[in-house]
């Protein structure tokens, strides 16, 4: 057997002589990629160009490309009329806080599930099962609870709920990464007298670090994008997040599409930068857990 036999079936096949069918397939592939590219990118490009059009042009023409030159007035107005930095800061605080809480709870729990079968099948399925429920189903009781303990309109209150929402995702991903570690390594550490928590901290976490990074980034992005809980639980600039800022925009100032585009872009760019920077981890993390 050569290496060739072990290569994945549909990838890196040896080049074959050109064949009309094959050329057609290649053309089809490029046309598809082109269409996909256009469909994916045009809304994003439109957002950028709209933010740079003059407000008058936005009202009269839906052209993708600005024809009257580039204007920065939408950006100025967006930042002047709406406290964007405030919203973004709240989003960041809620995101970091909720991600930290999620990992703090999900890490030991998923370790106990994978290694000691803690809670049997029931407990892990309960956690993962909560993912099925739409957030709206807990919103009334949770609103009452948060109001009773004074956590309405507080970043911490919203972060708590984002933790609840992200716990199944994080547990699912972390359990999957932990299953890949051979038990021998941990047993060796146990012989040396480490506690289970010690093993988790010193052996397991370093071994699954890429997976942990992927999990953290996904939790961060999910929190950054979350809308329903933020809508219900935040009332003022003290805790309102970026998605709420965007939705308020439309209510208070009429539909100023140029300003909305500028504001929306301000919240999208950090996510894209983060995702492209950690692209490898993200794709690895997403595609490992989901499919098996």
């Amino acid at each position, binding site marked *: 057997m050569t290496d060739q036999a*072990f*290569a*994945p079936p*549909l*990838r*890196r*096949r040896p080049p074959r002589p050109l064949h009309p069918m094959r050329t057609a397939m290649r053309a089809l*592939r*490029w046309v*598809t*990629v082109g269409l*996909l590219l256009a469909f*994916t990118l045009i*809304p994003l490009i439109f957002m950028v160009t709209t933010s740079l059009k003059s407000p008058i042009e*936005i009202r009269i*023409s*839906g*052209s*993708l490309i600005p024809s009257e030159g580039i204007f920065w007035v939408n950006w100025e107005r967006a930042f002047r009329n709406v406290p964007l930095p405030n919203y973004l800061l709240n989003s960041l605080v809620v995101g970091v806080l909720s991600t930290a809480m999620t990992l703090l709870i999900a890490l*030991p729990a998923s370790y*106990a599930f994978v290694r000691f079968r803690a809670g049997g099948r029931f407990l892990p399925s*309960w*956690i993962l099962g909560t*993912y*099925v*429920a*739409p957030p*709206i*189903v807990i*919103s*009334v*009781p*949770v609103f009452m*609870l948060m109001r009773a303990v004074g956590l309405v309109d507080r970043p911490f209150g919203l972060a708590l*709920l984002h933790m609840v929402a992200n*716990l199944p995702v994080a547990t699912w991903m972390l359990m999957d990464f932990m299953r890949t570690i051979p038990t021998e390594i941990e047993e060796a550490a146990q012989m040396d007298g480490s506690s289970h*928590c010690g093993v988790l901290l010193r052996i397991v976490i370093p071994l699954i670090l890429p997976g942990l990074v992927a999990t953290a980034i996904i939790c961060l992005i999910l929190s*950054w*994008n979350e*809308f329903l809980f933020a*809508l219900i639980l935040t009332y003022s600039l003290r805790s309102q997040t970026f*998605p709420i800022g*965007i*939705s308020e925009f*439309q209510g208070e100032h009429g539909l100023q*599409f140029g300003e*909305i*585009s500028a504001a*929306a872009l301000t919240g999208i760019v950090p*996510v*894209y930068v983060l*995702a*492209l920077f950690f*692209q490898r981890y*993200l*794709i690895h993390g*997403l595609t490992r857990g*989901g*499919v*098996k």
Partner: protein
Amino acid sequence: MHTLHRRTRREILWMVAPAVLTLIVFSLYPLVYSIAMSLSDSQLARPFRAFVAFKNYTDAVADALFRGSILLTFVYAFGVTAIETALGFGLALLLNRESRASRFARTLGLLPFITPPVAIAAIWRLIYDPSSGMLNHYLVRAGILEQNVAFLGIPGLAMASVMLVDVWQWTPFVFLLSLAVLASLPHEPYEAAAVDGANTWQQFVHITLPLCLPGVLIIAILRLIGAMKVFDLVFMLTSGGPGASTQVASFYIYKTAFQQFKTGYASAMTIILIIVLTILVTLLTVLYRKAQQRYGL
């Protein structure tokens, strides 16, 4: 040995305790609270005014808007799941080889589903705008439309327009996960088929499709569960309108509880929604087990 065992048990207990506490406070308690509230006459500011037994439930079952909202949620969720799975898996089949095109598509595919839905809905609103929208601009110029159309203002079309944004956002997710399914296929069946002289099409129909079925089914179930939660796109694009033609269950329950303050009634609808979803997920799990038994690796 005995003491060590006890120490271990206590340590494990501490490891799962925070997760269990979270589940009790944010999953069990809300469920019990919702059931209690659904049996009462409750307002947001004045909960539990009176015990009304099953009145909220009989009201909900009789409420055409509520039944409609469940139906619309199913139309939305099954619709987008079917389209996204077909498109995403199809793209993965087409781009399932190391090439510049596929690497580029993979990076690009990461972007839509991490875009804040509220932000992307804001721009789709302008794309669909009846007077200065991009879609009207180009469709009228190309002669496909005679005059501007209010994409979000016509029942039926509004629903399709919201679904298109979901397709924009989630097809790349299906594509990325489908690539992973394809990459995990074993090689032996293909070698055996090649020895037997099967052509590419036969290999695709008799090997690739059946082997991919369980994995693709999981992806579709993930999407279905996600699409059942739809709220932000509807909130931003149509607010449930025109009429109630895009009023999905999440949005109707939100409106009832937080705009009309009828929390008792909203709780009854919530419990019904939970029951419907539980039945759906149970059926899907059975379906997946069957596929796994028949085609699983």
